[in-house]
């Protein structure tokens, strides 16, 4: 096995992104690069990487087998990955998969005889609003129909190559929206380049912030009462203030761009259309927390986003924003939902299996490479320039008490206008969102339920949706705002199937570290499969609930709850549907 | 010389018959007990298990003669079983087992020794058996045989008194101690048992005979439950079988005594069986009658053994000393009065 000089040089450059004694962190990057070149990661590749980084081969092998994007066997030249998660299933991805299998004449994960294609189903691709979707190698194809699929496959067959797909046009704002973060993207001619961003007043906040003391910035952010937009809703300023001081160790800032919650596709928009907003937010935050290095952990399924960010960072470096005391590096994930959990993300960033860490210690004390670390969501960081620019008081005028500012929400499922929207928090109810903003359900269907914050949040029945969209109101309604991914279920949806789909997602994404989640998620999936086949037995529903309850709250990381809550909610709220299946 | 030859021949015949009867008593005992318990009993050796005694004897003879290590006085230990068996065989010599057999031109008396004081000889000799048991108990040098020996001597001494006293009324009536005379008397008159004033004597005699022969319900010297096997615990093979033989021979002798004293010996109360035989056939018939009567008593022994449980030792001694001895004395007086008033006829 020989690695071309060019590639090795690239690899050597990547390795410098990490502290010299922590080069293990480059494992994921190296895996990506070698897989891109060789098509798969076999023994030779694993040994090469372990030699390169001075690791034991098992360290690399563990990583390779953990992340679904890495393959140990050669795939076809074009790897067709169809999203099978809830939003896409609601939009008919099963038909697409069946059609593809028929057309290419292969089963899942089999290579066509000509070596061109392999079909796989994958978990959420964060394009839920435009489902069904698929990725072929690094290109995404949205709003699929069987005709469209035919055309794509035929074109690849005839030309023998894959066309680069352009970014779709950004969605125009609805009158009920208040766009702050998304204010730039629909401006005419706005491309997201540094020049465009600066023209719209970009990087003024950075200049302002650099003139401030870090403590002042932290105070300002604290005062804005901005809560984390990742899912847990922890106040951002408070998080920063917990950072261990005087340890003598460097401080790291990590931007969590591992947007993998099914139904959520908001960060993708920010990264794709306005990357400099994020970069400015990161630079300000680094200044505030005293970080010299920031990593953007972007999920592996967004190669386009990674490229955009890298380009933007180069632009910013050319202008001296980046590299002048603060470095920003892009770190690609490789398809693990668990990396959305901050300690799992840190482990993954360190080049290991994304096993969430036990807490305490918290990352603010012992985080990335054993140093104090702040992990913030993309949307949270994108808010920072606005807060600095216009002040925390201005920020607090938006939204309601306890949920300040605006929020990006993503709507998917059978509504007329799915997509991403930005609202002041608490100023709009779920009903308004679905029926006014999104134009109601398609084809005269009726509403059956709504999952209000990504698939891990408890479902709400159709009569519960008169609730304002903010953290507290949703919590009082028995669910959570989560990551803002709203999945709409209409009356044609089989709840058992939907529960199975969600359970399957969590069983697939369970990292396998701690017992309840490792064993419980797969058990729930198997049970639901059985119930769906109509082989349910009496007391199965109770058992399902109990198994979910046994996972809930017993795990290392919140994925336990994430897997348990939807099942518990579906079982309690739609019990009769389960009983129809014999459960 | 002729007397010696004839006597030796009689002894030989008598011993042969006696030992055969004893052996078959064992067979009978096992058979009867089996029947009473709804079983079949010995049935493997020969037809109806008739060869069983032979097999038993053979086994006994072939068995290793174990001499336990703790036996210190080997002579006494060996003497024990001999003393238990020999007296029983000796007493048989005084009992008339028929009238006479006309054979080779002679009238051969069917008794080894026709003694004047035959009854006394019988009692005296049979008392020797207790020495055997006491010796066995002592020489075994072991606690169970010892206890068995002690019990046995006490029991036999006690009941010997009753045994002897109980038959005094019979002598009083007959006026002789010769057993031949007794049979003769009964052939001329009637059997003692048909004289109601002799009934108490018979009852006490038969019960005492049970006690004297260590048979149930008075088999305390060898009480299995308490004393393992009493005086014969430490014995095996031929020595053990000598005890066995002695016990059954004693049973035979006691039965013979009862037959002779109360049931007319070899006679039947009609001709030609009520006077001494004139032909060989009648003589042999007398012997058969005598054996048949004994058989009935042997059956009685067996019957009672498999029916009645063992009495307690204090009950046994109380019965002997407190009831039987006074009773026999009263009986003597009573029969004396009867005889004085009615002359016994």
């Amino acid at each position: 096995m020989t690695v071309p000089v060019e590639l090795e040089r690239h690899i050597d450059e990547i390795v410098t992104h990490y502290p010299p004694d922590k080069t293990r962190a480059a494992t994921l990057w190296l895996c990506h690069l070698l897989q891109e070149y060789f098509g798969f990661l076999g023994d030779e590749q694993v040994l090469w990487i372990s030699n390169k980084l001075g690791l034991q081969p098992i360290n690399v092998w563990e990583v390779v087998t953990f992340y679904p994007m890495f393959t140990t066997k050669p795939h076809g030249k074009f790897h067709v990955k169809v999203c099978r998660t809830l939003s896409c299933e609601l939009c008919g991805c099963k038909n697409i998969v069946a059609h593809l299998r028929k057309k290419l004449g292969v089963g899942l994960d089999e290579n066509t005889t000509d070596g061109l294609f392999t079909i796989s189903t994958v978990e959420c691709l964060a394009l839920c609003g435009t489902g069904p979707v698929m990725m072929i190698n690094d290109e995404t194809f949205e709003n699929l129909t069987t005709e469209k699929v035919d055309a794509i496959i035929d074109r690849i067959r005839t030309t023998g190559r894959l066309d680069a797909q352009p970014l779709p046009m950004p969605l125009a704002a609805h009158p009920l929206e208040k766009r702050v973060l998304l204010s730039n993207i629909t401006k005419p001619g706005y491309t997201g380049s540094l020049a465009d961003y600066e023209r719209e007043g970009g990087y003024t906040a950075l200049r302002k912030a650099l003139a401030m003391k870090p403590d002042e910035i932290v105070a300002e952010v604290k005062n804005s009462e901005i809560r984390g937009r990742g899912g847990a809703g922890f106040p951002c300023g408070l998080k920063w203030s917990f950072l261990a001081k005087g340890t003598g160790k460097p401080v790291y800032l990590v931007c969590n761009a591992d947007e993998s919650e099914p139904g959520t596709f908001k960060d993708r928009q920010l990264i794709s259309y306005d990357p400099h907003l994020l970069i400015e937010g990161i630079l300000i935050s680094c200044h505030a927390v005293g970080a010299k290095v920031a990593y953007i952990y972007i999920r592996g399924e967004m190669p386009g986003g990674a490229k955009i960010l890298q380009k933007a960072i180069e632009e910013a470096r050319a202008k001296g924003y980046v590299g002048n005391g603060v470095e920003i590096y892009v770190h690609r994930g490789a398809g693990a939902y668990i990396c959305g959990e901050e300690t799992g993300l840190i482990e993954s960033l360190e080049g290991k299996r994304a096993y969430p860490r036990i807490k305490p210690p918290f990352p603010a004390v012992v985080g990335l490479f054993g140093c104090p670390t702040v992990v913030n969501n993309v949307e949270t960081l994108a808010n920072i320039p606005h807060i600095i620019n216009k002040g925390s008081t201005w920020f607090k005028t938006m939204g309601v008490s306890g949920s300040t500012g605006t929020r990006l929400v993503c709507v998917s499922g059978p509504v007329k206008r799915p997509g991403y929207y930005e609202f002041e928090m608490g100023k709009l109810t779920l009903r308004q969102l679905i029926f006014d903003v999104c134009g109601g359900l398609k084809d005269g269907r009726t509403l059956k339920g709504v999952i209000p914050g990504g698939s891990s949040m408890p479902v709400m029945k159709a009569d519960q949706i008169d609730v304002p969209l903010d953290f507290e109101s949703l919590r009082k309604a028995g669910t959570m705002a989560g990551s803002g991914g709203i999945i709409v279920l209409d009356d044609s949806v089989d709840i058992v199937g939907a529960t199975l789909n969600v359970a399957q997602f969590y069983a697939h994404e369970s990292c396998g570290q701690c017992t309840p989640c490792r064993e419980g998620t797969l058990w729930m999936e198997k049970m639901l499969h059985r119930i769906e086949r109509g082989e349910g037995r009496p007391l199965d529903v109770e058992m399902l609930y109990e198994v979910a309850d046994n996972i809930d709250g017993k795990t290392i990381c919140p994925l336990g709850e994430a897997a348990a809550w939807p099942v518990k909610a579906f079982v309690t709220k739609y019990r009769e549907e389960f009983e129809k299946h014999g459960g | 010389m002729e007397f010696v030859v004839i006597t030796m021949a009689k002894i030989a015949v008598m011993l042969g018959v006696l030992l055969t009867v004893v052996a078959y008593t064992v067979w009978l005992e096992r058979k009867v007990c089996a029947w009473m318990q709804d079983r079949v009993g010995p049935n493997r050796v020969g037809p109806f298990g008739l060869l069983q005694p032979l097999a038993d004897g053979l086994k006994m003879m072939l068995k290793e003669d174990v001499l336990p290590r703790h036996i210190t006085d080997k002579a006494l230990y060996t003497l024990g079983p001999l003393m238990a068996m020999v007296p029983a065989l000796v007493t048989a010599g005084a009992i008339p087992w028929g009238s006479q057999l006309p054979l080779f031109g002679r009238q051969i008396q069917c008794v080894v020794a026709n003694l004047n004081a035959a009854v006394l000889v019988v009692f005296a000799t049979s008392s020797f058996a207790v020495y055997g048991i006491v010796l066995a108990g002592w020489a075994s040098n072991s606690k169970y045989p010892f206890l068995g020996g002690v019990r046995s001597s006490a029991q036999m001494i006690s009941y010997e008194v009753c045994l002897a006293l109980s038959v005094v009324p019979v002598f009083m009536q007959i006026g002789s101690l010769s057993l031949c005379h007794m049979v003769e008397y009964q052939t001329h008159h009637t059997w003692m048992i048909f004289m109601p004033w002799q009934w108490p004597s018979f009852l006490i005699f038969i019960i005492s005979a049970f006690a004297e022969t260590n048979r149930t319900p008075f088999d305390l010297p060898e009480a299995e439950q308490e004393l393992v096997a009493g005086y014969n615990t430490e014995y095996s093979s031929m020595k053990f079988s000598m005890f066995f033989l002695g016990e059954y021979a004693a049973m035979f002798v006691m039965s013979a005594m009862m037959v002779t004293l109360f049931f007319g010996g070899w006679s039947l109360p009609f001709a030609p069986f009520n006077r001494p035989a004139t032909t060989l056939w009648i003589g042999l018939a007398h012997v058969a009658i005598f054996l048949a009567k004994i058989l009935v008593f042997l059956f009685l022994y067996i019957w009672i053994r498999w029916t009645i449980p063992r009495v307690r030792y204090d009950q046994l001694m109380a019965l002997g000393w407190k009831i039987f001895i006074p009773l026999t004395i009263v009986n003597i007086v009573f029969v004396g009065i009867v005889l004085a008033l009615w002359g016994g006829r």
Partner: protein
Amino acid sequence: MLVQRPKLTFWERLYLPQVLQGLWQTLSHIPRKKFTRQYPEEKPPLYGKYRGAPELVRDPDGRVKCVACQLCEFVCPPKAIRVVPGFRKEGASDASVEKEPSDFIINMNRCIFCGFCEEVCPEEAIFLLRDFSVSGYSREEMQFHKDKLLELGGVREDKIQKWKNK
């Protein structure tokens, strides 16, 4: 506690009527039907749950069911069982079951046919079958080894076949 002795009547105290009654009782049994069974020629009938000698069984596919867990050895009250654990031969269809006794010895001199081994066996491999007259001419002969036990036990047709769906 004092037990009041029953007051006996004169006849009872005399004891003789009871003796006669007893004598009649035993005598009356003499002509009755006998229960003796002529054993070696006439075998006794064995009923459902009869517990004879413990023996090893094979499953319907002819495999040794015992996996040498030694629980029977542990539970055996007279310590009659001795198991020598060993490896199962490779390549068989049941290779996932790695263990079987290389020898299995039951000392029939000691065995009391209590059935604890059958009860404790997690693999349903040992059963108290119908052999009740276990005899031999030497102590050595009474040590039943694995092959003999398996031959005596034969194949047991039952539904429990754990290996099939392991």
